[in-house]
């Protein structure tokens, strides 16, 4: 399962986007945790590139976690760096608790942004950005579907 989260508000699903993707992933019978993590990190990287450039701390708040670990390092800047660091730690911890030790989520990878305003930036189509775009995470899923599936499949082949 791949899921997306923005802060405490889950946009799990995005919904058809992930449903379609999860069906295709389920079709890769020999998928491995390594492949899922590679795919998750790919989505995170692509989504970060899509984040509007005037939201540096939002970009920094990206994380990818899986049942036994995660890529969660974040360095925030400016006046709200302390509060964003605390919020980041809280969101990541909550997401970790959700999948850790749960057999159902053994191969699950969660990609998200911890910034409290992530969802609003994501959904505000009227905002004008010189570089970057709203729907930054959704676009990372939809526009990189083939690369995501290839990453999962490629790791499976390497292990066989």
């Amino acid at each position, binding site marked *: 399962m791949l899921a997306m989260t923005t802060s405490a508000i889950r946009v799990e*699903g995005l*919904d*058809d986007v992930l449903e379609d993707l999860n069906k295709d992933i389920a079709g890769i019978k020999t998928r491995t945790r390594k492949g899922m993590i590679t795919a998750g990190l790919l989505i995170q990287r692509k989504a970060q590139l899509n984040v509007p450039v005037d939201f540096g701390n939002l970009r920094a708040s990206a994380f990818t976690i899986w049942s036994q670990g995660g890529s969660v390092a974040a360095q925030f800047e400016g006046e709200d760096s302390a509060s964003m660091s605390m919020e980041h730690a809280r969101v990541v911890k909550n997401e970790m608790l959700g999948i850790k030790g749960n057999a159902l989520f053994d191969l699950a990878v969660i990609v998200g942004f911890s910034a409290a305003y992530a969802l609003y930036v994501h959904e505000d189509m009227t905002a004008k950005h010189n570089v970057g775009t709203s729907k930054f995470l959704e676009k990372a899923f939809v526009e990189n579907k083939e690369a995501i599936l290839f990453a999962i499949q490629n790791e499976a082949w390497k292990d066989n």
Partner: protein
Amino acid sequence: MNPVAIDIKDILVEAGAGVFAAKNGWSIHVDNEPDGDNVPDTVVSIWNTISSEGKVIGVNNPTFDSYFQVRVRGLDYLKAYEKVRECRTALDRKTNFRKGDMFYAGISTQDGEPLPLPQDKKGRFIFVQNFKAVRQ
């Protein structure tokens, strides 16, 4: 092939959700939420978000997954909410119809309840709802 938001605009106008570029009442717009003296506070805007080629059903007949967002702006919280629900009702699970040169297999919402966004600079309430259309 129209951008999906153009077709959705027509559907919402036909459903009575508003009038395209109206100067008063509910004014419907595409990929734009106008503001100013001659524009009402009550605006429904439809935004093309993402589009991708979907599964191929037959030779030369690819389907397209076209994502769009309906955004409602209004001075009154409840009226804005009711309008976004009205748009949702007009669009969600609408299946098997033709619009322009496209055949629509179906439209569905992507998320649950309409999402409230922060009020704009003029204190107007904003609700958004995301949809996906599968068309051919």
